[in-house]
């Protein structure tokens, strides 16, 4: 299975994502934001960073990149897409995922470990995890305060679209465990058809014990497992 990592001019986690999947032994290629084809990728990664300086709003300008038209139709046809951090913001801006991102309620950038509880294990991104499993994955963002109107939230919850929630180490959803003010401590969601994931934490930063943990691997391995079983 082949991965494609989209590179916007201000992406800065593109290489990290590239290496994360390459180190797991999968073919991967960069896709420049001006490219018009996805180079036969089976899963598209929209990496973190500041796609266009994140001026105006995070991800707002990136969604108009030429490559995004391809990504949108790929996703609409069931292709696997994962947006991490800035990639999540781009997915929100282009409407592949519902809701919007606000500035962290603490009004500061936060780079630290976060604990995530896995809320739904029957998706392409989480199938190797067990329900309620707690993962340690770092965050690094200034605008990760996920917002959605109450009706939208009900729907997300009802359809199992909330995949990850910020929790404490013991797995409890608490206000202290919420690093940015996200509604419902939401850290990651998928679309209604389950093939598009957006998450603020950075799994690509924890795929190696040398970097202090390897829980991030589970996401990439789940994707591969799902794809191969399909």
């Amino acid at each position, binding site marked *: 299975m082949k991965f494609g990592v989209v590179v916007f001019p201000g992406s800065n986690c593109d290489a990290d994502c590239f290496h994360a999947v390459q180190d797991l032994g999968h073919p991967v290629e960069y896709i420049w934001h001006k490219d018009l084809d996805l180079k036969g990728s089976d899963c598209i990664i929209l990496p973190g960073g500041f796609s266009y300086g994140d001026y*105006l709003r995070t991800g707002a300008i990136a969604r108009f990149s030429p490559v995004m038209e391809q990504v949108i139709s790929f996703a609409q046809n069931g292709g696997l897409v994962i947006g991490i951090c800035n990639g999540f913001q781009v997915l929100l801006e282009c409407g592949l995922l519902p809701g919007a991102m606000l500035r962290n309620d603490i009004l500061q950038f936060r780079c630290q470990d976060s604990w995530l509880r896995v809320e739904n294990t029957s998706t392409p991104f989480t199938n190797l995890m067990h329900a309620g499993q707690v993962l340690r994955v770092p965050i690094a963002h200034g605008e990760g305060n996920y*917002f959605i109107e109450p009706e939208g939230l009900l729907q997300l919850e009802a359809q199992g679209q909330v995949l990850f929630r910020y929790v404490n180490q013991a797995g409890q959803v608490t206000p202290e465990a919420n690093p940015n003010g996200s509604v419902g401590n939401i850290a990651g969601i998928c679309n209604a058809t389950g093939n598009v994931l957006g998450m603020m934490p950075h799994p690509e930063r924890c795929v190696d014990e040398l970097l202090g943990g390897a829980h991030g691997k589970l996401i990439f391995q789940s994707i591969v497992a799902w794809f191969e079983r399909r």
Partner: protein
Amino acid sequence: MLTAKVLITLKKSILDPQGNTIKRALNSMGYPEVADVRQGKMMEVKLNDMAREKAVAIVDEMCQKLLANPVIEEYSFELVED
């Protein structure tokens, strides 16, 4: 030349932590009169010569497409001649 002054604000229903922080700062700086602060964005968009109606139409379009995010924001604008 026409300039569109675009104001973009968070919807009323959405919490504005930045505005709250400014309000608290002002209160503690000796301005107890400040009851509320909301922060938004202002953009001055200079347009090459064109008819006013056309300008209204395209600025509105730009706001919807790019400048504001309808999920969380509202916008308004006025056109001024300079």
